[in-house]
Structures are given as structure tokens and as C-alpha cells.
């Protein structure tokens, strides 16, 4: 549970460290240590010693170094595939999406933003970091891996999935939709809180807010409505009550 800062400008690095410490104190976030360095290599050596969730603030442009921030991030990912990576850069307008995907970075922070906003941004990252550490069930993912697609969605995000066509699924979270090749059965059997409520719908029981018996609809926490079949209405209601 450590925080790493990669930054070649000593003044900026110290300022960032102070900021992180301040935010952690305000929000009572616990951490083991803050490592500040201007060498990517050092970070990579340090990681192997720690076991829990790490948070990395990486500057993309590092002078006089064999790796820039992006390459360090790639190296980090080979060792630690769950840590949070945050890029810090002077040109956030150029912050490329491809980087973000290649190393699953959390976000980009623009160095040039005003101090208050910068603090807010960093605070967001730290809060996320705390959330991750509190949630020990890190591998609680809905994971589907078939010959045509690989899906990984946090179970706490999953709302419902439906078939759109033979072998075709649409999966919904609060603000995402995924359309891919797959079978509803694959989703249904991943967790027992996922339950079939209709021939072509599987719903996350935790996300049901209300069952409308009259219209035979499930109303989910975010207002989404999905149908329940007559046949399954009773079993869905029972399972939902039990939870």
C-alpha cells in the first residue's frame, strides 16, 4: 500500500508529495510510504517488495532517463496489474487515449491546472485508491472469455445483460454498454447473484430496486426497466427477498 511519484523536477516532486500527504491527512487515508524518484528503474525494483495496492503518479516526460513515464507504466503493468496509474503531464490536451488503454491508466492530470483544481484531481485519485484498498475482493469481476471476446466488468457495476440476437449479448452498467459475442448462460453462471428473469435477460439481484408485478417489470437502481417473464417472476422475487 504505497504511493510512488516519478518526477524529474525536484521542486515539483516535493510539491506533489506534500500535496499528497496533505490530502491523505484530511481524508485520513493510510499509506505505507511515499517513494519519490526520478528513475523509473527504482520504482520497478521497489514494487516487487510490496504486495498490496499501489498508486503511481508518473510524469510522462522524464529527461536523462532510459525510460519515459509511459514505458515505466508498461513495466509496472507486467509486475503489478491492479495498481492505479496516474499520468502527470504538461500537455494534457495531447494525453492520448491509446496510452490509457495500453497500461489501463486511471487518468491524466494536467500539471498546469490551477492549484485548487489540481488538488481536487489528486484527491479523486487518492479516494479511488482508498476504495480499492478497502474492497479486498479485488478479483470480483464478471469475466467472460470465449473464442471471440474477452470481457472483464466489476460485478459491482453490472446491471443486466440481454441477448440481442443469436450468440449476441448486450451488457449494461451504470454508464456503459458492451455489445459482444457470447451466450447468456456464460453470464448467468459466473455468480449466483446473477439470475435469469426472462428468456433473454439476466439481471444482477443487487441492482433491483423494485419489482413491478402489475407490468411484470424489474426497476433497477438507476431507473432502467427490464421485463420479467411470468414463469420466472416468482423465483426472481423470492431470490431478491432473500438477499
Amino acid at each position, binding site marked *: 500500500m504505497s504511493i510512488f511519484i516519478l518526477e524529474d523536477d525536484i521542486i515539483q516532486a516535493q510539491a506533489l508529495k506534500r500535496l499528497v500527504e496533505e490530502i491523505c491527512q484530511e481524508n485520513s487515508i493510510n499509506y505505507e510510504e511515499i517513494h519519490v524518484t526520478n528513475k523509473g528503474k527504482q520504482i520497478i525494483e521497489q514494487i516487487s517488495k510490496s504486495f498490496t495496492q499501489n498508486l503511481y503518479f508518473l510524469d510522462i516526460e522524464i529527461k536523462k532517463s532510459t525510460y519515459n513515464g509511459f514505458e515505466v507504466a508498461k513495466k509496472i503493468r507486467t509486475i503489478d496489474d491492479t495498481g492505479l496509474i496516474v499520468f502527470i503531464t504538461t500537455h494534457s490536451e495531447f494525453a492520448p487515449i*491509446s496510452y490509457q488503454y495500453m497500461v489501463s491508466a486511471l487518468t491524466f492530470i494536467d500539471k498546469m491546472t490551477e492549484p485548487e483544481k489540481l488538488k481536487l484531481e489528486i484527491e479523486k485519485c487518492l479516494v479511488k485508491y482508498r476504495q480499492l484498498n478497502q474492497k479486498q475482493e479485488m478479483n470480483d469481476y464478471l469475466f467472460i472469455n470465449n473464442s471471440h*471476446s474477452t470481457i472483464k466488468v466489476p460485478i459491482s457495476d453490472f*446491471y443486466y445483460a440481454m441477448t440481442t440476437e443469436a450468440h449476441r449479448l*448486450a451488457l449494461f452498467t451504470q454508464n*456503459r*454498454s*458492451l*455489445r459482444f*459475442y457470447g451466450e447468456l448462460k456464460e453470464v448467468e453462471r459466473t455468480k449466483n447473484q446473477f439470475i435469469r428473469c426472462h428468456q433473454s435477460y439476466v439481471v444482477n439481484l443487487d441492482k433491483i430496486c423494485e419489482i413491478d408485478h402489475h407490468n411484470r417489470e424489474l426497476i433497477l437502481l438507476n431507473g*432502467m426497466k427490464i421485463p420479467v417473464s411470468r414463469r420466472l417472476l416468482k423465483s426472481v422475487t423470492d431470490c431478491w427477498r432473500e438477499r
Partner: protein
Amino acid sequence: MNAVLTIVTGFFNSNGYNIYSVVTIFLLLFYLGLSQKQQKLSLVENIYFSGLTVFLITFLQSELNKILNWLLIHSAFPVYFSTFIVLPLAVALILLGLLIMLRKKVGQVFAYLVESPLLYLSILFILVCNFFLFMAFNPESFSYQHYFWQFEFIAYPLLFLAFGLALFFFYYSFKLSNKKRLVKQKESEYYEMQRYTEKLEILHEELATFRHDYLNVLLSLDESIRSKDLKQIQQVYNEIIKPTSKIISNKELELTKLTKIKILEIKSVLSVKVIDACQQDLNVTVDIPREINQIYLDLVDFIRGVSIVIDNAIEEAAASKEKVLVIAFFEVDNELFFVVKNSCSEKIMPVDKMFQKSASTKENKLNQRGYGLFSLEQIVNHSANLMLETIVEQDYFTQIFKINKVSVNQL
């Protein structure tokens, strides 16, 4: 919908020609209701569609019945009265089954049919055919029925001919519109490629002049610095160096990043979209870190899908406050990503409503809306290794195509 109902049910209720057909037609209507909801067909299109299917199916059914009866009578099987009820039922059920199984295909063919140049002619033709079919099966509802019986020997061959023609229409308009689409696409690809090269040339010239001037600028600066002439330094900076920032921050330079795409057709289409977006004053970012040589997907499908997504994004971004459009194209491990991200206005609809056909944040302009996402969904649905992810965040909207490379190699 009411008009469709009367036309379709009008056939059989008068003399009970075949109750099973009525059942078939009823279920067909059910399907029609679905298809209308999905594709947003206009009333005329819907009538045409139902007319065509009803004609084809009724005729096919009556002829199949005749053939089966004939075969049965001439076969060694014992014939009972009930067999003549069971047979039509079996035929009706088989046709119904086929129709349900192939409904998506029929829907697809029909999407082409509506675009075909023969649309109005075939509507007229189908109406006439249905009228004759009605006469043939319910002659007693007409006062001039004896005329019909008189010409029965011509009427049936004529109906046969009409059936053949209807099938031909179906097939031909499908072919024709498909061909037209391909030709159009080739043409636009060529045109887009030309525009792209022109733009590149202009950019190249600009860059060349800049490079040429740059050395001179350095020289003159060098000289003024040596002489410590602050005034001259200021002058050089204001007149020569400052304007160059315009060249450097030229949004259209994003276009040059497309050179990393080694597939000509994709490059040309994307270039047009990027130019278009620049002209609408969007802040365009193109992010293609490495060369793209292969897309592991049908090229036409890919281009169509990507075009739909980018067009939507440009339209949405242009109406938004921040006017941001980001296009990224890259590979991670065994997946190819194509990402389009755009800023959007506050009015965002929930993700699960977005793909429903009638859904659109804008007013419906003559049913034009909905076709884009309809085709997008079809493309996604028939490419097994393609995944589409849609993310709705505050002020930003992202569509991601993920193409699985591995599964293609396995095929």
C-alpha cells in the same frame, strides 16, 4: 398499422378459404409490428412489405397445398378426409416457422429493398397482384365473378407469372441497390483519397516553407543576439517567430498522423472525417501510436461502422460547448481498438435506451434517424470478433470498437 390489418385480414375472413392461413397471417402481423418498431418504416413501406410477404406466402401456401394433395392422392397412402385438413396446417406451420427463423434476414433484405430504384413500381405491382389473388380465392364476393371463372385458365398462369415476377423484384432490387451502394462507395473513396492527398500536399508545402524560413530566422536571431540589439530581437520574435506558432498548432496537422494507417480506404475515409471536423472548428486529436496494417474485419463493414460513429460524434461535438473530438486507433495485446470520444451537451440519455431504434436526442427528421444505429447494430451483430462498447460520462461520450485478432486467426 390499421391499414395493414385490414389489407391482410381482408383476404380470408369472408369465405373461410383456409383458417390456418389466417393464423399464419396473424402471427405475421405480430412480426410486422415488431419490424416496424425496430426499423421505423413508414406506413407506405410497411404496407408494401406486408403486401409482398402476404402475396408470396399465400400463393406459395396454396400451391404447396395443391401439390401435396396431388401427391397424396397419387401415392399409395390411404387418404382420409382429415388429411386434407392436416396438410394445409402442416404447410402453414412450416411456412410460419421459416418466416420466424429468417425474419432477421428478411428484415435486412427489406432495408435494401426500400432503397432500391424500383420501389414505387414494385409497390404498384404488389397491390395489383394482391387484388388478383383476392379475386382468385374469393371470387363470389365480386359481382362479376362469372368473368373470373370464364378466364380461370388464364388467371392461374398469370398468377404464377406474377409470383415469379415478385420473386424477381425481390431479388433484383436487392442486387441493384447493393451494386449501387458499392459503386457509390468506390466513387466516394476515390474522391476522398484525392481530397486527402491535396490536403497533405498543402500541409507539406507549408511545412517546407516553414523549414526553409526557420534557418533564416535562427540566423537573424543569432546575429541580433550577438549584437545584443534587443529591439531587433523583439522585432524578429514578433514578426517571424510568433506567427509560426500558428503553423505548429494547426489543427489540420492532426491529419498527418493518419499516415500511420497503411490501409488506403480507411485512411481516405478517416481523412475526410478529420477535415470535416476541423472545418467545423472542433478540437480534433488523432492518436495512432503505431502503424496499422490489418484490421481483421470485413473492410466495408469496418468503414461503414466507423463512419456512422464518427459522423454522430462530429454532429454531437459541434453542438457541444467544448467541441472536442478524439479518434484513437491502436493495438493492445491481441485486440485492435478504435476509439471515438466526443464532448456532448448535457442532454444524455441512459445507455440502455440509446440503441433502441426510435431513440434519438434529436427530433425525427423524416425517419432519417435510427438508420445509422440500426446498420451499426447489424454490423456488430454479424461480426463475431467485433465488440462495441459505449460509455456515457459527464459531458463525454465514447464509442469503442474492439476487434479480437486471435479469433480471426482461429477461423
